[in-house]
């Protein structure tokens, strides 16, 4: 492998691990804020118990997200120094705003959220939870603004020293053409990921005890999310795709497996085997003219194919093609489960249908897989560029010796597998325990005088 391949492998590995964690914490922080709000409003102990149940999981996931994110913020410099030098004046400030408005907010209030209930009272504690939730979402705003600028760059100038520099308007840099779509699609994905994880855990415990109030409540809440938000996500994804067709058509060619141009309506390939060397889609199962219908809303509309793009400017088609199908397939499966849950709910069988619960357990990790697949589509699909059409990935890397990058890649793999493997195991252990009426504190010790009582509290000693 070349230095470039090693550096790319390292970035792909570390960002994939990292991306899973905020995908979960963005949704989970908001879920915790909702649970605490419901508890404060209704006083029902089941919400307080669910808060304590999920906040333990949140603490573990958040810690992993923080440390894997720290790696990302330095990796731009260690492995992609030419990119950093050239693009720093434009996307550096966006990341600085992420630190200033999001990271400090999350980190500053996390301590109070996790450990402060006995010290600050309910109102301030709720405020801390909300601050963490807002912080996680603001973080998504800024980092996706930076990513979107790399995908659809606008508002820049090119200086004499080769640097991209900001033009007169920062709004043109932040709100690039793909940003609103990417932001909506990604944040909804984070909420859905959380909903399916919560729903899977709830279903798992319902299969053992249909009367567990915590499991019933979390499953019901998660299935509302699935039923209402999964269809919204399909629409958001479709709009994002149309936006990509407008601004990054080559990415869509790879997603569709369109090696050839189709002047009279392009077929939709359901499956096939992209052979990039031969520039054709083998064993294709196609629906005639359907791709033109979806992308252009006209079955006879012409669509250009990869035959219009030099091989050197094509992304790796296989990865994009398959990752796209995984994402879309899971998206429809999620919407399907949401629909099924609606039907079961109307029939009053939401908490009794074992087949629904088993399916929900199986779909528990679906969001994580879909998020990774979607990320692979968008990031692999914009190759071979880091700044789309302007700066090649090959011209972005640091001047490093191959052994340095190889050894560090190996070190990342070993440490991440050990550390995050252990972390995932701890999360699964926490999930395997049913939510109890007297859910314990963060260290697992039972908390006195809390739970389903007329005046429940989030922590011991706080109950009226």
């Amino acid at each position, binding site marked *: 492998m070349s230095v470039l391949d090693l550096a790319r492998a390292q970035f792909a590995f570390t960002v994939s691990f990292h991306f899973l964690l905020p995908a979960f914490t963005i949704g989970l922080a908001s879920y915790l804020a909702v649970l605490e709000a419901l508890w404060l409003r209704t006083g029902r102990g089941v919400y307080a118990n669910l808060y304590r149940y999920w906040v333990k999981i949140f603490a573990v996931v958040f810690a992993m997200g923080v440390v894997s994110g720290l790696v990302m913020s330095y990796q731009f410099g*260690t492995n992609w*120094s030419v990119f950093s030098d050239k693009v720093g004046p434009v996307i550096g*400030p966006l990341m600085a705003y992420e630190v200033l408005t999001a990271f400090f907010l999350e*980190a500053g209030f996390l301590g109070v959220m996790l450990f402060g209930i006995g010290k600050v009272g309910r109102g301030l504690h709720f405020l801390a939870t909300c601050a963490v939730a807002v912080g996680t979402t603001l973080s998504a705003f800024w980092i996706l603004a930076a990513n979107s600028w790399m995908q659809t760059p606008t508002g820049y100038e090119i200086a004499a020293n080769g640097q991209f520099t900001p033009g007169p308007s920062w709004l043109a840099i932040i709100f690039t053409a793909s940003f609103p779509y990417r932001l909506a699609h990604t944040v909804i994905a984070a909420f859905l990921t959380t909903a399916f994880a919560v729903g899977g855990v709830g279903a798992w415990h319902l299969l053992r005890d249909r009367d567990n109030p915590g499991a019933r409540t979390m499953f019901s809440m998660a299935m509302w999310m699935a039923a209402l938000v999964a269809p919204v996500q399909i629409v958001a994804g479709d709009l994002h795709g149309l936006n990509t067709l407008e601004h990054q058509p080559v990415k869509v060619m790879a997603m569709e497996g369109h090696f050839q141009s189709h002047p009279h309506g392009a077929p939709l390939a359901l499956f096939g085997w992209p052979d990039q060397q031969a520039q054709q889609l083998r064993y294709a199962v196609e629906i005639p003219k359907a791709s033109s219908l979806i992308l252009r809303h006209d079955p006879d509309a012409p669509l250009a194919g990869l035959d219009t793009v030099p091989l050197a400017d094509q992304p790796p088609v296989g990865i994009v093609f398959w990752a796209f199908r995984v994402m879309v397939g899971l998206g429809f499966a999620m919407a399907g489960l949401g629909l099924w849950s609606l039907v079961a709910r109307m029939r009053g069988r939401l908490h009794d249908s074992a087949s629904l619960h088993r399916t929900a357990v199986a779909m528990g990790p679906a969001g994580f897989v879909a998020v990774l697949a979607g990320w692979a589509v968008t990031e692999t699909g914009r190759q071979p560029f880091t700044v789309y059409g302007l700066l090649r990935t090959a011209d972005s890397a640091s001047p490093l*010796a191959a052994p340095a990058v190889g050894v560090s890649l190996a070190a990342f793999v070993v440490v991440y597998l050990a550390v995050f493997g252990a972390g995932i195991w701890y999360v699964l252990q926490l999930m395997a325990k049913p939510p109890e009426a007297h859910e314990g504190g963060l260290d697992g010790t039972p908390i006195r005088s809390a739970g389903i009582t007329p005046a429940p509290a989030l922590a011991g000693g706080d109950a009226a």
Partner: protein
Amino acid sequence: MMDLTVIWAGIIGFAVVAYVVMDGFDLGIGILFGQLEVGSERDTAMNSIAPVWDGNETWLIMGGGGLLAAFPLAYAIILPALYAPMIAMLLALVLRGVAFEFRWRDPRHRAGWDCAFTAGSVVAALAQGITLGALLQGIAVSGRAYAGGWWDWLTPFSLLTGVGLVVGYALLGACWLIWKTHGELQDRAFAFARLGGFALLAVIAAVSLATLGLEGHYYRRWLAFPGVLATAQVPLATLVVTVLFYRALRLRREVQPFAWALALFGLSIVGLGISIWPDVIPGRVTIWEAAAPYRSQVFMLVGAVVMVPVILAYTAWAYWVFRGKVDSQGYH
């Protein structure tokens, strides 16, 4: 017109100082962790930093992200030049960061996570110190890129600064424990602090003398007349602060030792400033050469002027919420 580049150098400098002030003691507790007794001593030490470590570490992201945004050329040269220590630091911070949660989740393997916490803290501090030393001794630059090999950073001098920072952070950690604990653990922290003070003073002296020997630049900067009349105040003040530090220890003051230890760090940073200013990569790249364009600086300055005071306010509030002595039950 005000020079925004100087202002941004000040802001990055502030982030570095804030990082050392806040994360220094919590890395220091990690460094001392192996010396603490298993059980309530370790749990207490951990509880004293568990609610704040994440915010503390955010200043490191601020330093790195700020450097990328405000001085992209420096970021692009320094990080590849210090590739191995940087990667080691990141992995070390991964290990110690997760240990905060994992040691509570997994009592059977707590010893292992405690070990990861200590090792991670030591390696992170060592790597940061080595980075400082490597910068001071100079790195090879050609055009807009690093031009040296991937072991250039490793010299006796950079190892000295590495060990120096480990010692310094350990001292801050000991002083933090004096402030936040009582009883046997506090007694032990006093003992660490007495030892650490001497060690730090020795390291500061060694690094200072070695720095003078590095290149003519530093020698002239510190010892040429009449500038020496000003620069000589730094070592003199260091001696005065050391005396006050030991007086506070003798009188068993609880907050003062931490304050004086921070003052020692502050003076060392002033000394570094005298050595480096106005370069961002000493002897190679000035802050003006590395600076982002005016529009980037203005845009970020608006954010920094608004947000940094807000951040400091809620950070102070979080510390206030967790004020007072902790014990092994503490927050958990």
